[in-house]
């Protein structure tokens, strides 16, 4: 497959590689799934309110407490650790809440999913309409060049962009530009490629609501002559983004593109419990992509059930970066290079007709 690829990838959603993915059957393809008995899968997919209510109470409750402390300690050096913690809950934990509630799997009760989805979307600065549809496409065409709108690291990797985004700088820049554009009533060609026509006006409506909220916060900051309102709303998306970038890059970074087996293009990483709370178990990323219906709290059980068919997980975040960063550096010289995930002997082999000799050669 790689042999037929042009030297440079075109990531535009309406460009050459998008068209090519449709023509070659990579778009909306049938993906590999590990066999799981129906009864077991039903148990795993079962919805509950309890775990997400508990986690949301901890999440939002901690934010309220930290915000109160931050206000009390504002102007002293002691507010720094408080805002660092608040920022991670605002600018990173919101990423996983946006994600899980977008799937509708966090809570059993629909309105709870929707309410947390809206709160998290606002914090992470992702339009709740646009990003619902972009994420649907991400699951249909995971890391298919020209089709997936959520490829975090394109090839060759833009390392400056990655570093800036540790502090959310480019993401927020684009998010603000998109919000202003949508609020003015404009939906881009790329957005139109994955948002159905009847949904596009909703993206505009949310952008206008958000713009009004930010206008109030900025006005409050100007009126009080203090940065404090923005430290609580808006800026934490910058100073608290690092954890969701740290974990998010591991999802697909350095792995194969243009394949239809999540074992090849996604990474499961075992993590400490604090990161797993912030990340809501999305470290089980192969499992999540293979079975998006399984709620975050059931992913460890799913992992135990199917790990015989998956590449070995990375044992830590550090281990993941130890393989990913050298892969990024090699992709600067050879963008076809990727890390090929080795399967255990108990696993069903990859479908080599979709990722054959040439792709393997690029991985070596």
């Amino acid at each position: 497959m790689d042999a037929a690829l042009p030297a440079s990838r075109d990531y535009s959603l309406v460009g050459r590689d998008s068209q090519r993915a449709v023509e070659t059957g990579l778009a909306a393809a049938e993906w590999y799934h590990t066999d799981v008995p129906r009864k077991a899968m039903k148990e795993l997919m079962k919805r509950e309110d309890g775990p997400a209510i508990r986690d949301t109470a901890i999440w939002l409750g901690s934010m309220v407490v930290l915000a109160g402390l931050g206000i009390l300690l504002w102007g002293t050096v002691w507010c720094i650790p408080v805002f660092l913690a608040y920022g991670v809950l605002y600018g990173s934990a919101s990423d996983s809440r946006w994600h899980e509630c977008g799937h509708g799997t966090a809570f059993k009760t629909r309105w709870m999913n929707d309410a947390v989805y809206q709160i998290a979307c606002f914090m992470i600065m992702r339009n709740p309409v646009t990003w619902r549809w972009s994420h649907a496409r991400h699951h249909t065409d995971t890391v298919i060049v020209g089709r997936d709108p959520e490829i975090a690291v394109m090839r060759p990797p833009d390392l400056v962009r990655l570093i800036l985004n540790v502090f959310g700088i480019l993401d927020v820049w684009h998010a603000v530009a998109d919000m202003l554009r949508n609020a003015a009533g404009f939906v881009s060609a790329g957005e139109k490629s994955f948002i159905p026509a009847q949904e596009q006006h909703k993206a505009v409506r949310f952008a206008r609501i958000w713009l009004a909220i930010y206008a109030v916060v900025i006005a409050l900051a100007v009126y009080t002559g203090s940065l404090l309102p923005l430290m609580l709303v808006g800026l934490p998306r910058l100073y608290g983004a690092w954890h969701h970038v740290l974990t998010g890059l591991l999802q697909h970074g350095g792995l194969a593109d243009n394949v239809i087996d999540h074992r090849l293009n996604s990474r499961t990483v075992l993590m400490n419990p604090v990161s797993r709370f912030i990340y809501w178990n999305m470290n089980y990323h192969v499992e999540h992509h293979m079975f998006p219906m399984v709620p975050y709290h059931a992913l460890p059980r799913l992992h135990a059930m199917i790990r015989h068919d998956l590449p070995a997980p990375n044992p830590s975040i550090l281990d993941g970066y130890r393989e990913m960063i050298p892969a990024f550096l090699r992709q600067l010289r050879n963008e076809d290079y990727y890390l090929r995930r080795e399967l255990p002997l108990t696993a069903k082999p990859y479908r080599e007709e979709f990722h054959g000799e040439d792709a393997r050669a690029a991985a070596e």
Partner: protein
Amino acid sequence: MSDWIEACTADAIDEEDVMRFDHEGRTFAIYRSPDDEFFATDGLCTHEHIHLADGLVMDDIIECPKHNGRFNYKTGQAKGAPVCVNLKTYPVKVEAGKVLIQLAS
């Protein structure tokens, strides 16, 4: 004129579950509700080409396994993004322990 086709036996589907049924090149989903009633819809999600029979039945909702799109399987109504187009439903009856689906009229 109508055609009642045998899809499966009633005990082949658990309560609050769904089963795939293929017939003459078409695919359907047969549901058994928590109230022990049977229903049938087209088998593929209207959003993308995904078999609903791999999804999750919750009360009168079927949730697509790929993007979590939701339909009321009794009426076929799409319940919101990412599904916008309703599912086609089919009459169903149970006779002598067999689930019959009416495919044409």
